[in-house]
C-alpha cells in the first residue's frame, strides 16, 4: 500500500488538486444567479487576491499619473490662452443650445408624466481611477480604486462622459470590480435612437459589444446612436452606449446581432464615474443650471444681436407712458401698431358694430368715409350696379303681378324706418324682392 502511494504520489497529488477544484467549481456554478456577487469563501479569496495585488498597482498608477500630469501641465500651459478663447466661444454657443434644449426637456418631462414614464436623473456620482484589469481575454473586468468604504455597492452603473462602461460587481473595502458591457456575461437594456428598436447589449466572445437577437430591419444603419433604455433597472435611461457598427446575421435562425462601437473607449479608461444615486425628480442643481442657462443665453443673444438695442431707434417713451390722471395700478390698454396696408381685417378699418346692418356689405366708400382709406385696396368684381346699392333702398320691381311680400317683411320694423299702415300711406314703399325663377 505504501509503495502504491509513493509510486503514484505525483499523479495522486495532481488528481487530488484537480478534484478539489472541480468540486469548488461545481459549488460556484450551482448558484441561482451566477452573475451575482460572490459570497462566502470565494469572496474571501477574491478579496485577498485583490487586496494583495491592487496596492502595488495603485502605487504604480499614482506614480505614472504624477509624472505624466507634471509633463502634461507644462504642455498645456503653452496653448492655454488660445484654448481659453475657444472655450469661451464654445461656452456661449452651448448656452444658446442649452436654452433651446431646456424647453424641449421640459416638454419631454410633461409628456413623460402624461405617459406615466419615470425618468431617472443622476443625483450623485463617485469619481474613481481605473487601476487594473483582469488581465485575460476571457474576462472583461476592470478594477477601480473605490470600494464599499466610499459608498459603492454592487450593480451600480459605471460611466464616462462619453458613454456607459459597465456596472460594479464585487465590491471590496477599497476597490471594486467593474464588469464591462463588452463581457459575455454582461447585459444592458438599450434602444436604437432613430428606429426605436430595443434589445439587450452584451459582449461576444471577442469582447465586442453587440445587441443580440434583433429582428432584421433595413432601417438599422451604420452610425445610428445606441442609448440605454432603462429597462434593466441598472442604467438610467438615455445614456450614450455607442453607435451601430454593422449587422451580423446569426448562423442559425432568422435573427441578427447588431455590433456596437462603444462610445466610451473601453481599452483606454483611466477615470470613471460610478452613479451611486438616481431619482425621479430633476436635481435642484440641474434646475438651477437650466434657469441660469436661460438667463445667460438671453444675455449672449443680446450681445450678439446689436440691432435689438439700436441707440438710433425712436423711443417709445410717450406711448409707454401711462396717461395722466389714471390710477397707477391700472395698466394702459395696449394699442396695436398702425397697419401699413390696411384691409378688411385691420381693426381700425372696420366700422363700429353699431353702424353695421345684418347682411350689409362693407364697401370701400364706407371705409373711405371713415377716413381710413389711405391706400388702394383690391376690389372684388361686382355682379351689377345693384350690388353697390344699399339694401335699404327698394329694388326696382319688374313689370308683372306684384308678389306677396315675404314673411320676413311682416316683421315689426323700427318706427322711424317703417311706419305702421295705420298711419296712412308710407313715405317709402316697402322693399320688394324679385320673384325667383323669372316671370
Amino acid at each position: 500500500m505504501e509503495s502504491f502511494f509513493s509510486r503514484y504520489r505525483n499523479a495522486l497529488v495532481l488528481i487530488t488538486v484537480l478534484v478539489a477544484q472541480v468540486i469548488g467549481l461545481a459549488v460556484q456554478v450551482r448558484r441561482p444567479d451566477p452573475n451575482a456577487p460572490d459570497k462566502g469563501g470565494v469572496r474571501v479569496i477574491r478579496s485577498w487576491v485583490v487586496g494583495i495585488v491592487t496596492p502595488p498597482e495603485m502605487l504604480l498608477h499614482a506614480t505614472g499619473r504624477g509624472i505624466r500630469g507634471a509633463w502634461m501641465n507644462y504642455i498645456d500651459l503653452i496653448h492655454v490662452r488660445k484654448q481659453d478663447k475657444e472655450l469661451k466661444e464654445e461656452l456661449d454657443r452651448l448656452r444658446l443650445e442649452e436654452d433651446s434644449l431646456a424647453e424641449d426637456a421640459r416638454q419631454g418631462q410633461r409628456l413623460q408624466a402624461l405617459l406615466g414614464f419615470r425618468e431617472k436623473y443622476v443625483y450623485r456620482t463617485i469619481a474613481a481611477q481605473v487601476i487594473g484589469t483582469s488581465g485575460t481575454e476571457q474576462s472583461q473586468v476592470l478594477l477601480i480604486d473605490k470600494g464599499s468604504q466610499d459608498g459603492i455597492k454592487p450593480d451600480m452603473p459605471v460611466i464616462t462622459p462619453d458613454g456607459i462602461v459597465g456596472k460594479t460587481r464585487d465590491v471590496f473595502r477599497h476597490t471594486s470590480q467593474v464588469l464591462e458591457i463588452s463581457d459575455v456575461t454582461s447585459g444592458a437594456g438599450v434602444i436604437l435612437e432613430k428606429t426605436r428598436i430595443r434589445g439587450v447589449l452584451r459582449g461576444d466572445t471577442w469582447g465586442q459589444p453587440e445587441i443580440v437577437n434583433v429582428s432584421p430591419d433595413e432601417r438599422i444603419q451604420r452610425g445610428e446612436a445606441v442609448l440605454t433604455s432603462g429597462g434593466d433597472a441598472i442604467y438610467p435611461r438615455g445614456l450614450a452606449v455607442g453607435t451601430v457598427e454593422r449587422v451580423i446575421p446569426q448562423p442559425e435562425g432568422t435573427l441578427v446581432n447588431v455590433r456596437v462601437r462603444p462610445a466610451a473607449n473601453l481599452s483606454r479608461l483611466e477615470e470613471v464615474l460610478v452613479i451611486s444615486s438616481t431619482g425621479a425628480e430633476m436635481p435642484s442643481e440641474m434646475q438651477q443650471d437650466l434657469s441660469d442657462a436661460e438667463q445667460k443665453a438671453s444675455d449672449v443673444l443680446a450681445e450678439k444681436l446689436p440691432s435689438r438695442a439700436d441707440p438710433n431707434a425712436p423711443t417709445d417713451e410717450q406711448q409707454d407712458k401711462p396717461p395722466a390722471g389714471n390710477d397707477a395700478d391700472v395698466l394702459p390698454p395696449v394699442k396695436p401698431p398702425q397697419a401699413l396696408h390696411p384691409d378688411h381685417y385691420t381693426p381700425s378699418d372696420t366700422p363700429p358694430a353699431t353702424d353695421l346692418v345684418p347682411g350689409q356689405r362693407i364697401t370701400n366708400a364706407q371705409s373711405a368715409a371713415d377716413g381710413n382709406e389711405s391706400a388702394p385696396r383690391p376690389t372684388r368684381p361686382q355682379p351689377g350696379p345693384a350690388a353697390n346699392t344699399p339694401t335699404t333702398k327698394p329694388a326696382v320691381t319688374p313689370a308683372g303681378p306684384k308678389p306677396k311680400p315675404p314673411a320676413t317683411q311682416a316683421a315689426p320694423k323700427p318706427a322711424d324706418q317703417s311706419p305702421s299702415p295705420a298711419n296712412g300711406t308710407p313715405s317709402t314703399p316697402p322693399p320688394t324682392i324679385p320673384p325667383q325663377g323669372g316671370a
Partner: protein
Amino acid sequence: MVLLASSRHEVGAKSFPVLVYILVPLLALGLQSLLSLHLNRFDLIDLPLLITIYYAITQREPVSATLVGAVIGIAQDGLTHNALGIFGISKAVIGYSAASVGVRVDTENHGARLLLTFGFTLAQTVVLWLLQRHMLGQQYAWHGVHEVIRAVANALVGVVLFALLDQTRRTEY
C-alpha cells in the same frame, strides 16, 4: 537529441530564495493586470502561465509544480469574475506536465524553452476550452490563428523572462 538532458549537470534542480517564490508570482499578477490596462493587446500574454512553466521546468518536481500552478491560477481567477478554479485547474495541469517534461529535456536551452512555452500555452488553451465550453457550458472563443499568435507571443516573451529569472536562482547539486 540536443534538447534532451544528457548529464547530471543539466538535470540538476535549481532553487530560489523564498522571497522570489512569493514576490515573482505576485509581481506577475500585478503586471498582468496593470499592463493590460495601458498596453493594447497585452492580454495575449499570460505572465502567470510563464511563471508557472518556469518554476516547473527548473524545479522538476511535479508535486510542487502542481501546487504552485494551482495557487497562481486561483489567484488569477480572483482578478476575474469567473468562478475560482478555471485557471487553477489549467495551471495545475500545466505545472505538472512541465515538471514531468523538464526531467527529460534540457531546459537550459533557449530553443527548448521556446518550444516548451509554445506548446504549454496551446495546451492551456485546450484545457480552458474543455473546462469552459464542455464542463461549464460557457462561451469560449476558439480561433486557431489567434491561439497560435498567442502561443508565439508567449514563447518569445517567455525566453526573455526566463533569462531574467535565471539571475535570481542558485544551483544545487
